[in-house]
């Protein structure tokens, strides 16, 4: 194993030098700027982000406080929700019942007036 390891070690080192030569032939080492300066494509992400922010700001300044159509504020929804039972009751009453209710209300009003007098 020791002999194999020594042979292996030499062979691995020797063959690694082929990659070093390949690397040297592939790159002009004087052109360091190419190696670590951010490539152009890296600028696209920040540029896209900046453009999105700018567009959102322009839209916000152009149409301030404008809500999309069909939207209601919370208080309107809450009021309408509270009125719903009465509306349902009213809708389910027959026309006769409604008439009776109206007559009762009128009688009560008259009674109140009489007693007041």
């Amino acid at each position, binding site marked *: 194993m020791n002999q194999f390891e020594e042979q292996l070690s030499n062979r691995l080192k020797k063959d690694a030098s082929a*990659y070093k030569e390949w690397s040297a*032939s592939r790159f002009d080492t004087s052109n360091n700027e190419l190696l670590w300066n951010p490539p152009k494509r890296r600028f696209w992400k920040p540029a896209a982000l900046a453009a999105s922010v700018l567009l959102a700001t322009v839209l916000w300044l152009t149409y301030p406080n404008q809500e999309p159509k069909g939207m209601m504020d919370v208080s309107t929804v809450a009021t309408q929700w509270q009125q719903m039972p009465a509306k349902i009751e009213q809708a389910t009453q027959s026309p006769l019942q409604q008439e009776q209710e109206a007559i009762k209300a009128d009688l009560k009003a008259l009674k109140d007036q009489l007693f007041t007098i």
Partner: protein
Amino acid sequence: MTEAELIHQAQQGVTSCFTQLVVLYQPKIHSFLLARCNNPSDADDVMQETFINAHRYIKSYDDRWAFSTWLFTIAKRQLSRLKPKPHISLDEVSEPVDEGTELSDNIWPLVKQHLGETSHDLLWFFYVEGMSIKDLSQVMNQSTSWVKTNLHRSKMKLSHVPAIQQMMGK
């Protein structure tokens, strides 16, 4: 200027000092990446990302470790983020290589093929870069006992690969 001074200056934001460090370490990183990547353009991309990240985070460099160890750690991390491209072997390279450079019959593609990328990296750092077990554990993000065991296993496995045996017998 010594390497330590270059690093210190680079940490202070002196770009020219970082450039000198790039010149110093580029051949090591790039040759490793060429051996490791399936495609030379991948190696170029990973190297570029490695140096971009090194430049960005140089202030966090801890001088308890060798600078090359730190760079190889970044390179390894960038390699793991690489999306695979079609394989181009050393023999299919269209670019001219120096006369006398033996590119066919190279042991490293066989190492990667039979042992996998982890063992390939381990053997490269140990034999080619001469890293210590401690440095290897840092680069591989593993314990020292893991490094020792896997180094031994890798050598044992290699000794049983017929193509390697044939190559060593020459």
